[in-house]
């Protein structure tokens, strides 16, 4: 989106996405083009601010969830320990099954 200078005139174009392709659309020149450029700028600023706010919210919530993810890892480790101690082995796709060989240590 922007101004293009040709000869003695300034011409304002705006970019649009149509069916996945970016297409340049001629808006005009003079006061109408300046007004369109101003509207475009404020719309772009609004989107930038929204993106920034979303980034900050994601950072904040990621930090909030982080201890829970650490807890998940610790709890899963203890589940493994408990099931291994009880004589189970983890097979494909996470299924725990009793070991085939009888192990004196687990009895």
């Amino acid at each position, binding site marked *: 989106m922007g101004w293009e200078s040709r000869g003695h005139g300034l011409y304002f174009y705006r970019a649009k996405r149509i069916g996945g392709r970016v297409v340049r659309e001629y808006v005009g020149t003079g006061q109408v083009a300046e007004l369109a450029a101003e509207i475009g700028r404020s719309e772009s600023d609004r989107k930038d601010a929204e993106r920034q706010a979303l980034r900050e919210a994601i950072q904040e919530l990621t930090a909030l969830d982080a201890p*829970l993810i*650490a*807890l*998940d890892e*610790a709890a899963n480790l203890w*589940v*493994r320990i408990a*099931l291994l101690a009880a004589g189970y082995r983890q097979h494909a796709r996470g299924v725990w099954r009793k070991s085939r060989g009888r*192990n004196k240590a687990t009895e």
Partner: protein
Amino acid sequence: MAGTKQQNEVEVPTTGSGIFALVKRAQAGDKSTVPALKKLLEKPEHVDLMGGNVAAEAQRSFINAMAGKNLAFKESLTRKLELLRSELAGLNPTPVERLLIERLVATWLQVQDADIRYAQAENLSKHWGDYFISRMDRANKRYLAALKTLAQVRRLAVPVLQFNIARKQLNIAGGSVVSDDI
């Protein structure tokens, strides 16, 4: 007696890396690790070493985020968590069950947090909506997985582990009398 003595002499790792190494050997099929694994599970301090503090931290940060400065809400939420804990724990939970219950409580808090944030958000754009919905989905999945794991551990491991702990306690109480008929 000899068996009891042998179990008492089992060396148990006391650091996180030691525990990881032990689990790795057990997963590879090393059956000599089983007595050490059982011993690890008997003592709450071992479980707290890797999990207890993290559970408290996770719950505290959710409570603070949800309640903010509202002390009444904070208090009622804390009370609700205590009820949830006692409801899930039953009479005599093992240390691992207690850790899994703490995880369940923390995941329940995350589900509430995600739902409240989505419900209270106004004029959500598509990006915000997508993010909040995906966080709610992740929280729900984590909560259901935590529930399933607690049930799985109770069904598969706890009967065996409690049996072993009970047998050991009887050995100690009865001096040299070893009974396998419990």
